[in-house]
């Protein structure tokens, strides 16, 4: 296996410094939100960036992760790490079922199928008693990590969220740069050729889909613990759009793009919410259009192209 390129080492070091230093300067809840969505976008990017599959239904896995973690922490009294883990397991199972159906089609159909299946999950969540309907699951306890460390302070919780994000990020980095990841990229570039070389393409796609769904579930579960809340917003289609937008802005198929995109979009939502109010959706739509028409490589993709080094 090749060594990690210098450009990526530097970028990772910079990200690490930012993660460690920022809670001393910025509001930890805001940073935790960025990290949760960064993980969500990284998980989404595994499919669009490295397998070439546009899933338009990642809200289903994020939202189920959120609901299940909230339920486990509040009703079953799970410790936060076990609550998040249960959210991830349910999201992975859901991802296995939906992925199995969706990989029968590719391209635009794949996007429509994942979107439709996710909307089915949304309707189930609207009706199911355990989600609390319009109220959602409120007052989720943050609890004690491993039953020992009290997470009620934002500062303490921040380090847990940072660790979760870094673990997910490094895990996906490893996946993408493993022989398994090479096959994924081969499928993205030329699926027919990957088939003719004897790879069981559907199996690879399905495994990637399950990994992506599971990490989206981790992101959703962590979000539920941070905000002590799981609602229908987490599972509705605009949430899928957020993952797409963050990845697009940061750079599809780059390693550091999705976290950068999450940082940009969440910052924008926070800063503009006070000035623009409800116009934020319009601005987000505008960013979508602008990115697709003129900025398809995204922020990190552009930098990568300028430097000629992978990021």
């Amino acid at each position: 296996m090749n060594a990690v390129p210098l450009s990526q080492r530097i970028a990772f070091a910079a990200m690490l410094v930012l993660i460690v230093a920022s809670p001393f300067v910025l509001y930890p809840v805001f940073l935790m939100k960025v990290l949760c969505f960064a993980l969500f976008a990284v998980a989404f990017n595994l499919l669009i960036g490295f397998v070439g599959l546009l899933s338009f239904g990642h809200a289903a896995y994020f939202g189920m992760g959120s609901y299940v973690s909230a339920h486990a922490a509040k009703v079953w009294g799970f410790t936060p790490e076990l609550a998040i883990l249960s959210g991830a397991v349910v999201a992975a199972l859901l991802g296995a079922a939906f992925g199995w159906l969706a990989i029968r089609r590719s391209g635009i159909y794949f996007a429509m199928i994942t979107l439709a299946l996710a909307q089915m999950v949304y309707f189930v969540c609207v009706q199911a008693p355990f989600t609390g309907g319009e109220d959602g699951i409120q007052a989720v306890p943050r609890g004690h990590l491993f039953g020992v460390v009290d997470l009620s302070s934002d500062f303490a919780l921040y380090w847990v969220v940072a660790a979760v994000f870094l673990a997910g990020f490094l895990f996906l980095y490893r996946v993408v740069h493993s022989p398994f990841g090479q096959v994924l990229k081969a499928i993205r570039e030329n699926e027919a050729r990957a088939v003719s070389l004897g790879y069981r393409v559907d199996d690879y796609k399905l495994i990637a889909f399950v990994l992506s769904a599971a990490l989206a579930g981790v992101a959703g579960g962590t979000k539920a613990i941070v905000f002590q809340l799981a609602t229908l917003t987490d599972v509705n289609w605009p949430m899928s759009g957020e993952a797409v937008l963050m990845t697009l802005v940061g750079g599809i198929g780059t390693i550091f793009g999705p976290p950068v995109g999450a940082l940009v979009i969440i910052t924008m939502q926070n800063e503009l919410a006070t000035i623009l109010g409800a116009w934020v959706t319009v601005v987000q739509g505008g960013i979508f259009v602008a990115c697709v028409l003129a900025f398809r490589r995204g922020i990190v993709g552009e930098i990568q192209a300028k430097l000629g080094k992978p990021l």
Partner: protein
Amino acid sequence: MDTIFGVPAVALYGQLMLGLINGAFYALLSLGLAVIFGMMNVINFTHGAQFMMGAFVAWMLLEWLGLSYWWALLLAPLIVGATGVVIERLMISRLYRLDHLYGLLLTFGLALIIEGVFRNLFGSSGIPYRIPDQLQGAMDLGFMFLPNYRGWVIVASVVVCFGTWFVIERTKLGAYLRAATERPLLVQAFGVNVPRMITLTYGFGVALAAFAGVLAAPIYSVNPNMGSQLIIVVFAVVVIGGMGSIAGSIVTGFGLGLVEGLTKVFYPEGSATVIFVIMAIVLLLRPAGLFGRA
């Protein structure tokens, strides 16, 4: 009182009627998506927003210009279709050389913009639109009462769907269109202005969505979110039918509306999800869709 499978017959007919109404909208919208997709290989995510715009334009014509429902039925598709033509010329036409997914992302962004603007200008609560005088009241069909307006929606939808099918499958213009779908360069070499044809096709597909929006205005309240939930169901309808055939998308639209209506009678909890479940089953048995080409 008559019952069928333990359900009062009147309730059954009533739900079947509602199902047919929903089916009329599914058919019109999936038809528009299929026409656009066939020509441009773009899934028009803005379709739901354009459906909503049709309803709003009808309302504006009535409130601001005093133009009746019948004028709206003619003008709203033209106006919204014209905005579609502008969108295609300015933006979508730049993406034909790229991966088709960019078309989806672009039209998704446009849908966010359009719905956001309407939400800011008109709020989310919804505005009522009166049923035109000529279509007030109801008919007695013997076994049930049919509100005139609902009957009109079904008739209008069937006529427009059939007309579209006829133009595309049975006229010279339609033959050019189908030829341009298969071999755009060759058709261009024969002197047909294919880019303009694509632009007008998009405008026509959008106009179909707006027409459906005008039909929907008196039934549902006119509100900015009326299209976004509907369009996702229509995506499922399109996956079930497959986009290969115009007639297929019409039949699938009406059929699934009826199935949804039946589900409301026999298992009300499942009515919101039944179409998605059918989509999953169709994917298992016939991944290309009922009328699709593999």
